[in-house]
C-alpha cells in the first residue's frame, strides 16, 4: 500500500486484504457465519417441529437460490435491492444514526420516480433515447424525494431530540398510507380494479443482458455495486466520510475537530435516504414497470437492517451480506411455492440472525466455554 505506483484497483484490493487480516474483521466474519448457521439450524428445528421435512427445507432453500438460471436471476434481483438498501442503512448506522425508515424512503423514492416517468413521458417522443432520459429524470426525482423524506426525521432528531428509531418507523407507516391513498385516488386508471398506476412506456426499462428475465437486468446489480463502491470511497477517502464515521464512534472527538453534530445528523440521513430512494427507482423501473400499493411490496428496507448489521455496517461487507440475504429470500419464496412451508419462516430466520449478531458476547462466551479460545466458535 505504500507503493504510490499501485493503481486504484490494486490499492483497493490491498486494502481489502489488509482488512481481512485484521483480527476484529475476522472475528466479525466468524460471528456473521455462525449467527447465520445457528439461525438456519433453529429455523430447521422449527420446520421439523411443525411437521415438515427439515432436510428438504434446507435443500429447497439452496435450490431456490442458485438451483437454476432463473432462480439465480431472481436471487440476484433480490440481492441488488438488498445491497442498495443495505448500504443506505449502513451509512446511517455507521454515523450512529438508527435510520429504520429505509423502507419508507424506498417507497417514497419509487413513487417519485413513477410520477417523474408518468408525467414526463407524454412530452417526449417515443424512442429508446427518451427511455434513457426518462430513467435519468426518474432517478433524480427518487434521489430528491428519498433524501427529503429522510432529512425530515434527521431534522427532528437534530433539532428537537426526537428519537429517530421511532420517528422513522412512524414515517414508514405514513409513507405507505399516503402513497396508497394517492395511487388509489388519483393514479389508478379508469375502471381498473387494482390500485396500480398505468404501465410505464415499453421503452422505459433496463435491457436484459446475460439473464433472460423480465424483472432482472445485470445492470441493476451494476447500479447497486457502483453505489457501494462510491459510498465506500466517500466514507474511506474523504474528509466528509471521516467526519461521518467519527461522529458515530467518537462524538466528542468529532465535535472537537469542528464537526457540527446537528448538521452531520441531517446530512447523514439525507444521504441514506437518497440511496433508499435510488433503490425505489430501481424497484419501480426494473422490477415492476408500474407502481402499486406499497403495503404489498417486499420489505427490502427492513431486511436491509439485517444486511447492514451482518456486514458490521461496512459498505463493502454489504455485498456478501446482500447476496446471502438475496439467496435466503429467493429460497424462502421457492419453499413457499413448492413445499407449502410458509415463506414467513425465512423472515423469522432473518430476525434470529439479527438477534445473534446483536450479541457478539454470546459467541465469545461460547468460544471460551468450548475452550476453543478467542473468537473461534
Amino acid at each position, binding site marked *: 500500500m505504500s507503493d504510490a505506483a499501485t493503481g486504484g484497483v490494486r490499492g483497493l484490493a490491498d486494502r481489502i486484504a489488509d482488512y481481512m487480516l485484521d483480527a476484529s474483521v475476522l472475528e466479525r466474519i466468524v460471528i456473521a457465519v455462525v449467527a447465520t448457521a445457528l439461525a438456519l439450524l433453529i429455523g430447521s428445528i*422449527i420446520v421439523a417441529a*411443525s*411437521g415438515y421435512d427439515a432436510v428438504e427445507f434446507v435443500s429447497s432453500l439452496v435450490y431456490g437460490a442458485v438451483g437454476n438460471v432463473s432462480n439465480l436471476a431472481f436471487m440476484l434481483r433480490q440481492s441488488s435491492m438488498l445491497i442498495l438498501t443495505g448500504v443506505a442503512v449502513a451509512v446511517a448506522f455507521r454515523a450512529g444514526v*438508527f435510520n*429504520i425508515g429505509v423502507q419508507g424512503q424506498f417507497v417514497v423514492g419509487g413513487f417519485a420516480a413513477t410520477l417523474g416517468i408518468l408525467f414526463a413521458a407524454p412530452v417526449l417522443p417515443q424512442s429508446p433515447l427518451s427511455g434513457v432520459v426518462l430513467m435519468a429524470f426518474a432517478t433524480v426525482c427518487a434521489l430528491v424525494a428519498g433524501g427529503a423524506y429522510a432529512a425530515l426525521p434527521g431534522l*427532528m432528531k437534530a433539532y*428537537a*431530540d*426526537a*428519537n429517530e*428509531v*421511532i*420517528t422513522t*418507523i*412512524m*414515517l414508514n*407507516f*405514513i409513507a405507505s*398510507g*399516503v402513497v*396508497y*391513498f394517492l395511487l*388509489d*385516488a388519483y393514479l389508478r386508471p379508469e375502471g381498473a380494479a387494482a390500485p396500480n398506476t398505468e404501465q410505464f412506456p415499453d421503452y422505459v426499462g433496463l435491457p436484459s443482458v446475460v439473464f433472460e428475465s423480465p424483472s432482472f437486468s445485470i445492470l441493476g446489480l451494476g447500479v447497486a455495486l457502483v453505489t457501494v463502491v462510491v459510498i465506500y470511497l466517500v466514507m474511506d477517502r474523504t474528509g466528509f466520510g471521516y467526519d461521518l464515521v467519527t461522529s458515530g464512534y467518537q462524538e466528542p472527538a468529532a465535535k472537537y475537530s469542528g464537526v457540527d453534530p446537528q448538521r452531520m445528523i441531517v446530512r447523514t440521513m439525507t444521504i441514506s435516504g437518497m440511496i433508499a430512494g435510488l433503490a425505489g427507482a430501481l424497484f419501480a423501473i426494473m422490477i415492476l414497470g408500474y407502481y402499486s400499493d406499497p*403495503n404489498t411490496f417486499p420489505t427490502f428496507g*427492513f431486511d436491509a*437492517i*439485517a444486511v447492514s*448489521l451482518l456486514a458490521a455496517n461496512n459498505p463493502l461487507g454489504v455485498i456478501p451480506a446482500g447476496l446471502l440475504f438475496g439467496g435466503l429470500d429467493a429460497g424462502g419464496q421457492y419453499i413457499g411455492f413448492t413445499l407449502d412451508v*410458509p415463506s*414467513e*419462516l*425465512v*423472515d*423469522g*430466520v*432473518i*430476525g*434470529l440472525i*439479527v*438477534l445473534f*449478531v*446483536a*450479541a457478539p*458476547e*454470546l459467541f465469545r*462466551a461460547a468460544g471460551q466455554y468450548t475452550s476453543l479460545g478467542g473468537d473461534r466458535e
Partner: protein
Amino acid sequence: MSATGTLFDDRRALLGVLGALVAVIALLLFVDLPGSDLVTVGALERALQAATPIALAAIGGLYAEKSGVFNIGLEGFMIFGALIGAAVAWLIAGGGDISQLHLWIAFGAVAVITGVLATLFAVLLIRYEANQIVAGLAVWFIGLGFGPFAATVLWGGVSSPSLPNIDTIAVPVLAEIPVLGRLLFDASPLVLLTIVVTVAAWVVLFRTRYGYWVQAAGENPEALDTAGVDVNRVRYATVIFSGVMAGLGGAVLSIGIGSGFTGTGVTMVDGRGWIAIVAYLFGNYNPLGTYGASLLFGAMDMLQIQLQTIGISLPGSITGLFPYVAVLIVLVGVGYTRVPSAVGESYDTEE
C-alpha cells in the same frame, strides 16, 4: 383523573399530557358540524378500549427503561402475545366453541410464555450485553416472521378464524353511575384492570422500596450495588415484566377486545408497540401520565369512526395514519425527556 397533580414528579409533563387531551377534545368539539358531537360516551368507550393494549405495553416498557434497559422489542412481544392468546384459546377448545374460561386461561398462558421469551431476551441483553436497539428490532422481525408462520401452521393462513373475546362485565351498583359507570363498570373488564394496573404500577414505582431499586438501577447503578442490591437482578425482573405486559397487550388485541389474530402486513399489532414507547416518553416515565398518553393515541385511533358518524368521510388509509402523525407531533413537541442516566449501559459489578 383529576387531582392527580401532586402525584406527578414533573408538573410540566402533566400539563403537557392534559393540555394535549383537552386540546384534542376541544378541537373535536370545535369542529361542530351538522350531526352529532364527536365526543360522545361511545367515542370515549372506544378510546378506552384502544388505549388498553398500548397502556399495558407502555407500562412494561416504562419499568424496563426506568431500570436502565431500553426494551425496544415491545412491538415484537405484542405480536407474540396476540398470536399465543389466539392459538392457546383455539387449541384448548379443540377447535370447537371457545368459552370465556378458555379465553382467561389463554391470557394466563400468554403471560407465562411471553415471560419465558422475555427471559431469553433479558439474558441476551443483560448477561451477554447485546446491543439493545438491534436486539429489540430483532424481536420485532422474529415476531413478524414466526407470528404469521405459526398462524399458517395452525390455521392454514396468516390469520386465525374469527374468535370470541372477553365478555363485558357489569359491576353491580357502580355500573349505575352515569357516564363513568358505562365507561368503566359496564365495559370489558380489561379496561378496568388496565387502569388498576396503572395505579398499582405508580404506587410500586414511587412508593415502595422495590420501586426505588428500579429507579436506582437506571439512575445510579453503582450506588444500588453498594447498598447490596443486585442491579442485574432488578433489571431481569423489569425486562421480563415488560415482555409479559407487552404480551398481554397483544393478547388484548386478539382475544380481549378484537376477534382473533390477523397476520397480514405488519400484523394486527400495527405499530402499537412503537406507539407504547412514545406513550411512556410522553408520560415522562410516570405510569399515570403514560396512561393519559395511551388514551390520547387510542382516541386518535378511533377518530375515524367518529368522523364518519358526523359525516366527514376520509379514506381509511388516511385516518388510519392519525396515531402515527400524533406520535411525530408529540416527539417533536415534547422533545427531550429526561432519560434515566444509565439506560443502554450494561452493568458489571466490580471485582
